[in-house]
């Protein structure tokens, strides 16, 4: 059982969704990103996604694009990623990395997996790597005991959901809407349908992301999914400082704990 498996066993036992918070490493600076991630861990995020700031984030909306730009302008380098992951682990938190594929490919897939595992990271979310091109990563994650979190989308056919879930471990990331990251007023009716379609193919936990920004939305998503993923809303708060991040995290952590209807 991986540490992510243990987490979901626990939250399922508690009858709630896990709270998964995304913040980019190096935003606004490496040191501050460590503090911001520590604040989310302390305030109740069950798992954090440490984002890798990348020059061409095609799946991200304006908020995360701007944060990545800032991080890069402030000198973020790849080696800083492992340091930030380590800081989460040292704080007692659980961290996975979310990254576009090229930096991993360029670093060397096996070396990246090795160094991520050594830093205490638990896995990788790969928005532009599907299992179709994933053989090298599948081997490396097996070798280094990392979970591979692949994505499913409302447009995924049942055939593709089967292929994706068969290759995934830890949890499955369901994108609630067709689109890029960004806080939205509603999470999309498609989300629940997608969770149900995904569960028809796997016992893996299913996390829902893209658009969640409030405690109420977290409660709603938590009622039908195993994990509630919050990105852009937290990144916006990160621009305001650790207190703002802590307070939104608390609201979301309360949301996922509301009794399911």
């Amino acid at each position, binding site marked *: 059982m991986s540490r992510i498996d243990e987490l979901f066993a626990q939250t399922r036992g508690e009858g709630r969704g896990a709270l998964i918070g995304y913040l980019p490493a190096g935003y606004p600076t490496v040191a501050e990103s460590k503090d911001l991630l520590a604040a989310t861990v302390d305030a109740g995020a069950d798992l954090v996604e440490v984002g890798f700031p990348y020059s061409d984030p095609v*799946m991200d909306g304006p908020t995360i694009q701007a944060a990545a730009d800032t991080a890069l302008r402030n000198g973020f380098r790849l080696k800083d990623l492992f340091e930030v992951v380590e800081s989460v682990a040292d704080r007692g938190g659980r961290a996975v990395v979310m990254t576009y594929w090229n930096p991993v490919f360029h670093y060397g897939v096996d070396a990246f997996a090795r160094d991520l595992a050594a830093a205490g990271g638990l896995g990788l979310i790969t928005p532009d790597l599907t299992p*179709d091109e994933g053989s090298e990563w599948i081997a490396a994650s097996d070798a280094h005991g990392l979970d591979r979190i692949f994505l*499913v989308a409302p447009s995924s056919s049942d055939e593709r959901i089967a292929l994706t879930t068969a290759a995934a471990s830890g949890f499955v990331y369901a994108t609630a809407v067709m*689109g890029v990251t960004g806080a939205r007023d509603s999470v999309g009716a498609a989300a629940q349908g997608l969770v149900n379609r995904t569960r028809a193919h796997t016992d893996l936990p299913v996390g829902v992301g893209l658009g969640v920004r409030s405690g109420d939305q977290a409660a709603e998503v938590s009622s039908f999914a195993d994990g509630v993923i919050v990105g852009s809303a937290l990144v916006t708060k990160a621009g305001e400082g650790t207190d703002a991040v802590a307070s939104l995290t608390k609201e979301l952590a309360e949301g996922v704990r509301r009794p399911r209807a």
Partner: protein
Amino acid sequence: MADTAPQPSPHDPDARGHFGDYGGRFLPEALMGALDELAAEYDKAQHDPEFTAEFQRLLSGYAGRPSLLTEAPRFAEHAGGARIFLKREDLNHTGSHKINNVLGQALLTKRMGKKRVIAETGAGQHGVATATACALLDLDCVVYMGEVDTERQALNVARMRLLGAEVVPVATGSRTLKDAINEALRDWVTNVDTTHYLLGTAAGAHPFPVMVRNFHKVIGQEAREQILERTGRLPDVVAACVGGGSNAIGIFHGFLDDTDVRLVGLEPGGKGLESGEHGATLTQGTPGTLHGALSYLLQDDDGQTIEAYSISAGLDYPGVGPEHSHLKDVGRAEYRAVTDDEAMDAFQLLSKTEGIIPAVESAHALAGALQLGRELGPDGVIVVSLSGRGDKDVDTAARYFNLVEGV
């Protein structure tokens, strides 16, 4: 299957779009369904005589094909006396090779029952061609264009708007072609049910590289017939500029099996390779993923994309189509870089010696031809892909050569 069905080619990628080690699909899962649908529909269309006839009809009756092969003797005097022939894609409707691919994909869009087309553009040629085809075939059209490019190609922005397209300036990243593609991909992820992404070059995720190439193969097929008819022999060299690589792959394919014909791609050397300001992906890059495919890429030590630079908006791109990466690695094609200055010299030379103002992109191929001609000597025969006309570049040239007072 009809008799007109294309024969499977040894130059086709594998079922998942790999040319050797390159290509494939590195894009979000949300787009995989649309890419599968596109690949399946394209496959059916290729084998449908009605589709191929309609495509041919548009190429000849609308785009003006076949394009001429024009000998350029006065220009060739500056190339060591080698004979130089220009494949005149500049004479196509809308002024470049881009129209070939655009007509093909616009017809496919209709076949898929989609009503909305999005596209990226650098120089504006692909955007203009797409806006044109959308006007012709009654499709809604949105074109993403980097802000730097909307400035250096303002006339093409006006052209697209005249044709009824919406032009969206992109202010993120380097504000050039790469970022226009990012923005188009974000639109596509959001609107994929109703929208076709009409990618303008032989790059991106499978099936784009093979599909775009096949729509441009006509360039090489015509050029091969024409040069044989004119000279009774095959050329020593076929030269083309390489941005994403579509005009080059289209003309190269006519000669791929003629192993004595050298295929030479000319990349934008910008201010010189040592300056770091260039877009010479194949000569200076290393393998990596960008915009959906594994291919050569300009990237830093961390795998971050390096912003390209070229005086030519259409070549200002840090990636390249995967088939070129494969052709480079197996040694079937060679790639060289040509600086801004060399390209602009060739631009002026062709204008003054032949009365043909080339696109600044195509001027890179012409500069390459001058070098190659000198290397080959007087017996050499070179076919150059004159991928586009230079009307859009008059402003750039006026500044470069100080042709207008006060500019």
